[in-house]
């Protein structure tokens, strides 16, 4: 039986706006609940500023970039230092597609916003499955 590599889920965690919080919370839902055994992560600033070991993360793991806004820091970082991400989500664009406003507060998400984070996490979990099935 072939052992499938864990999928890396890398969130931007952007501090500038609440979309970074939404990306981060959804990523954590995947890591600690939805796909606990199949996923790993790395802090994006550490990945960016790290050396060979940190940059190797996305070479060892097929990776999903979770970006809060159109600046796409996670996607660009992974592409620059390792490989093209196996998948990526631009949360700002996704919320527009869903017709949903960004969270009001960047520290605390209300119950409706947590529901959106859960919805995003489920989408990420489906991408994890797709990546592992394709491998």
């Amino acid at each position, binding site marked *: 039986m072939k052992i499938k590599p864990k999928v890396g889920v890398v*969130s*931007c*965690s*952007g*501090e*500038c706006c609440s979309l*970074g919080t939404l990306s*981060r*919370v959804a*990523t*954590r*839902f995947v890591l*600690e609940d939805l796909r606990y055994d199949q996923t790993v*992560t*790395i*802090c*994006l*600033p*550490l990945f*960016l*500023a790290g050396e060979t070991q940190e940059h190797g993360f996305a070479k060892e793991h097929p990776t999903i970039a979770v970006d809060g806004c159109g*600046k796409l*820091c*996670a996607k*660009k*970082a992974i592409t620059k230092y390792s490989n093209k991400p196996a998948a990526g989500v631009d949360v700002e664009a996704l919320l527009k597609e869903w017709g949903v406003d960004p969270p009001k*507060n*960047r*520290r605390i998400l209300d119950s409706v916003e947590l529901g959106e984070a859960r919805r995003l996490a489920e989408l990420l979990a489906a991408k994890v499955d797709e990546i592992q099935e394709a491998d």
Partner: protein
Amino acid sequence: MKKPILILPCSGIGKPFGSIARDATFRVCDELRLGKADTLCLSLLVMGDEEARNRVASSQCIVVDGCPMACSRNNVDRSAGNIVTEFKVMDLLRENRGFKPREVTFLDEDGEKLSKILADKIAAKIDELMEESE
């Protein structure tokens, strides 16, 4: 009006310490010292965004690191940022040995308490810096 002081937390995602740094930063920027403090995306800065680099070079910066990797300090340093103070969550834990934060996604009771303590320290430092520059 004086230029806001920039607070840059590491926002580490693997352990509670990065969450505490992040949470405390938002408490200060959005509640305790609204208008006197601001933050920006650390990853954007590390990616070399010109506007972010200009902001850290022309502002007083407070870095807040969750772990000894000191991503915030190192990255602001590399971007020629003007670091005036550094806070480390590990120091906070040493000063408050009774607290054992465990949750990352949503801070537990101990994490919340530590975030409040850290936010108060950062806010006090901002007051001090603002007074000095008067």
